[in-house]
Structure formats: C-alpha cells, structure tokens
C-alpha cells in the first residue's frame, strides 16, 4: 500500500520528465504496433492460401508459359476435382501509375475454385456470357469509378495493343482479408486475339489452378502432375498455393523480416532512453533510499519503489500507445486503401504491445533497481551534503 502510494507520487514528481518518457514510450509502442500490424497482414493473407488448391507452373520460370493442352491431362489425374488456368496479363489503365493485377482466366472453373470471391449470380452469368466481359474487385471499381456496363480499355505491356473490355461483374471478398483489387477476363477472348496478332504466343497459359479433394492428397497429386510432364517440352512445378505464394513473395518476405527487426529496434531504443531516465531519477534519490534503509526498510522495498515507478511509467505510455493504435490503423486503412485492402489491429498485436511496454519498464529498471537495493547506507547518506 505504502509502496504503491510512494510509486504514484514519485511518478508525478518530475512531471515534465515523466511526461516525456510516457510520450516516448507511447510513440514507440504505437510504431511497434503499426509495424507488427503490417507484418501481420502478410501472415493473415497466407492463411487464405487454401490447402486444397495447387498451382502448376513452368519448371523453368514463372514467366514461361505452359501448353493449354495440359489442361485435359491434369483434369484426368486421380484426386483432381477441378482445373482452372490463367495468364498474368499486366495491363495498364490509361497511365503507367494505374497499375493493378490483371489475369486472363477460364472464368467458370476459376470462380468455382475461388469461393472467397463473392459475385451476385446475375452479374456472374452476364460475365460468363459476354466474350469481352471482365470482372473487377469492388475496391478497384471504386478507385476508377467504374460502373457495370462501362467499357474499359487496357494497354497491354506483355501483349501489345489496346484491349477492350466491358465491365460485367464486380466481386467482393468473403471477408476483409480478401484482396478486392483484381481484374480478370476471358482467356478465350485473349487467346483468339493472340491467334490473329501473335500466333506463336497463342494456345498457351501461365499456370493451372488445380483443386484437389482433400489436403492430404495435395502432395501426391502435385507429384503426379509433375511426373506426367517430365521430359516433355515444358516441365512443370506444382506446389500448394501457400508455397507458391511464399516463393512468389520471397522478396516481400525479406522486407517483412526487416520491418520486424525495425519494430524490435524501436523498442530497444526506447528501452535505452527510459533506462537512462530511470538511472538519473534513481541517482537523485539515492539519499532517500539510504534514509529509508536507515529506518529499517529492506532492499526489497527499495527495489519495489524503483522498479514499480519504471513499470508504472512504461505501462502508462504503453496504454496510451495501445489506445492510439486503433485510430492510427483506421487512418492508414483510409489513406492507403489502394495498397492495403485492410489494416486492422489483431489481439495478438495488442498483446505484443502490452508485453513490449512491460519489457521497457522492467529493462529500464534493472540497473537503477540493483544499485538502489545494494547501495550501502553510509555511502548513500553521504550523497546529501
């Protein structure tokens, strides 16, 4: 009781110093929370990778195509429930900076394999019927103000020329972790046009999306697929969607690791700053600690007073940082909606933030607590005069 009272009064003793430390911890915890949220988004996206979807691509490289004739052969393999396929199109809308992911796909099987893309059935059917039809995510449609029925012209980067589409469907994600910035259109339309303009590129596709009956058969099926195309003109690599994403995002992963390290560095820096402040505070109060010991208080009491103050300040700053995490995440979500489909704080991040603030408080207290608890009374008392 008494210790608590003393801790609280000590916190408010050097108001400016405590305030600055609290603000510093709050900012560090906020930054930590934002960085962790950013890396968390990626993990969250990974969760969406379905364990019953495989991706088959050219063994040489992602950018080499596969013959469309493989489709039938894959479909007939045991364990395969459904096969879709698609090509990375890489079109540009009006200007270079208006870049987004666009694919030419076989829409019926594609949508069946990706139930997380939710489309109203009338729009979906209209999209299936219209040869030049395209389907886009709600966020992309929003960004460019596209309405159903609008004509859209993309300039091809890999496949030159202007490509005309008619917007037939707008999909939404099943939940907020689904990317709503996709653009897909008919592979048939794509292939017909290539037959006329670049016949050597026709009748090929970029990758096959293969649905399997159960997660347990995924490994066997992918082996079977790759074995059937061994020694053929285009050998394949088949991976689960998760592995595919991981490889595709290897670069991103490196960046995310750096971000994670930075998030810890932020905490380490504030630890050092807080430790310095606590050491200064404790040094000024050496005579008080010696006086308390003279009266009969033990090293445990002194340790409690110093450590308690440090933890109280850190937790106060941490609490402010955690509370600020929510509006900050909201602002990022609004301001950067083109880049992050969502930016929401998970309970795990909040727990990490709380633990980090506790860690700051404890780390900052270690040295001054040890010194305060072990200072010899006669020496401590001399610090007055």
């Amino acid at each position: 009781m008494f210790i608590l009272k003393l801790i609280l009064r000590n916190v408010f003793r050097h108001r400016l110093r405590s305030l600055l430390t609290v603000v510093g911890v709050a900012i560090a915890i906020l930054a930590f929370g934002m960085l962790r949220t950013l890396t968390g988004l990626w993990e969250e996206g990974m969760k969406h990778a379905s364990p019953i979807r495989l991706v088959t691509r050219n063994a040489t490289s992602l950018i080499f195509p596969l013959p469309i004739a493989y489709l039938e052969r894959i479909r007939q393999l045991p364990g395969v429930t459904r096969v879709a396929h698609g090509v990375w199109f890489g079109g540009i809308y009006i200007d270079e900076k208006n870049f987004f992911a666009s694919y030419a796909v076989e829409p019926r099987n594609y949508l069946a394999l990706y139930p997380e893309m939710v489309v109203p059935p009338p729009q979906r059917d209209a999209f299936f019927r219209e040869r030049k039809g395209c389907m886009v995510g709600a966020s992309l449609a929003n960004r460019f103000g596209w309405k159903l029925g609008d004509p859209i012209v993309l300039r091809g980067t890999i496949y030159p020329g202007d490509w005309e589409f008619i917007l037939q469907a707008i999909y939404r994600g099943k939940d907020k972790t689904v990317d709503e910035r996709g653009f897909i259109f008919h592979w048939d339309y794509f292939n017909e046009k290539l037959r006329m303009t670049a016949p050597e590129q026709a009748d090929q596709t970029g990758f096959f999306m293969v649905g399997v009956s159960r997660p347990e058969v995924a490994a066997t099926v992918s082996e079977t697929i790759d074995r059937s195309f061994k020694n053929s003109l285009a050998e394949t690599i088949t991976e689960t969607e998760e592995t595919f994403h991981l490889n595709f995002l290897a670069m991103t992963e490196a960046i995310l690791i750096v971000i994670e390290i930075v998030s810890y560095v932020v905490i380490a820096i504030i630890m050092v700053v807080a430790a310095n402040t606590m050491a200064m505070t404790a040094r000024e109060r050496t005579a008080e600690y010696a006086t308390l010991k003279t009266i009969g208080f033990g090293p445990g009491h002194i340790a409690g007073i110093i450590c308690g103050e440090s933890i109280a300040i850190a937790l106060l700053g941490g609490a402010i940082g955690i509370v600020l995490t929510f509006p900050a995440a909201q602002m990022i979500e609004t301001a950067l909606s083109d880049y992050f489909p969502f930016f929401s704080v998970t309970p795990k991040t909040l727990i990490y933030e709380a633990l980090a603030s506790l860690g700051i408080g404890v780390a900052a207290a270690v040295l001054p607590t040890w010194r305060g608890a072990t200072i010899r009374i006669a020496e401590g008392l001399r610090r007055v005069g």
Partner: protein
Amino acid sequence: MTTTPPLVLIRDLSKSYRRGDQIIPVLDNLSLDIPAGEFLALMGPSGSGKSTLLNLIAGIDSADSGRLEVGGIDIRPLSERELARWRAGHIGFIFQFYNLIPVLTAFENVELPLLLTDLPRQQRRDHVELVLGLVGLADRSDHYPGQLSGGQQQRVAIARALVADPSIIVADEPTGDLDRHSAEEVLELLEKLVHDFGKTVIMVTHDPRAADKAHVVRQLEKGVLM
C-alpha cells in the same frame, strides 16, 4: 555495589576506508562508554571520524575490529537484515539535512518507521499524532516538507526518530543547517527527550552552543577521543 553496564560499550574499535589501493584509517582503537540516559555531544574538526563513529553505533556501517555492544547486544556479527530490524527497534535517526521524503506529508514521514511494525492503522495514527504534538507540529501533519521551514522539517524528523520509541537517538549535526532560533528549538527538544523520556542522545555537532546543552562533550581528533 554493582555498576550497571553502559548502554553503549565500545572497546578498541577501528575502522578504515579503502579508496582505490589507498587505506584511510578513520577510527583508531577507540574506546567509549555511554550510559543510558546520557546526552552526549561529539565534537571535533571536519573529517575526524565523528559521523563514522555515529554510524557504527547506529548499525549502518561496520567496523573492522574491536568490540561494539549496544543494550547488551553485540551488533558487529549481525547480518544486514538483522541489523535493519535491530535499528528499527532501537535507534532513531536525525540528520543534518532532515532527510524527509519530499512526496510524503509530515504525517506520512513520521509514520514510516511504524509501517515496519504490526501496529494497526488506528494505533499508528495515534502514535504519529502524539509525537507530532510533542514537537509542536500537530497542525502541520498534512504539509509536505517543501511547505515547512528548515526548523519545522527538523522537528518532523525528530518526531520520526521518536515515533517507534527507540532507546537511542543519534543526531548528526542536527542544527548544522538551521538558524539560531530553530536550532534552539531543536536542542530544547533533544534535551526534553533525555529528561522527560529517558532517551539516550548521541549528537555530533560543530556548534559550541549545542554542545553546552549536552551532559558530556567528547572531542574526536584524527580518529582518537581526547
């Protein structure tokens, strides 16, 4: 006829400090008896070892060799923890700069030694109010040290030294930082502790007027009693 043993018995006590690889002798085979109920003033030039001697008697520093008994207890072999408990029960401290905790009120400062006892809250309150009344500061119990004059702060410190009813009060230059009038009040209080309450007061001082109040004045020079 039997002589009662002195409250404080010191025989051949030596103490030196180590500064780097240099050894500084402070007390050199010092012997001294202080009977119960005495008001003793220790005088001497700065650096002669007065504070060191006081600290040894009060159990907040340890001697290198010799005998040191207080109230019949040999305190030299006691551990830090045992000493802390012993001090809480037997010694009251008064310092030159009062050493009050600035964030605690006069009442809370005086209450500090009682927090280490089993006394219930109400009894602690009674004790604190009693000693604050004794030093004439009953109406200042809610004041913080910063709101009190030097003399008042030292009187709060005396109340704190007194509240757990120790047999010995040690005071290291208790008037060293006070004006003449306040010093007078503090000395009168110390005298009262000896006369009215039978306490033993050991006071280090530079002030001849302070020494005048004491029953016995001893001079310490270079670690040797004159």
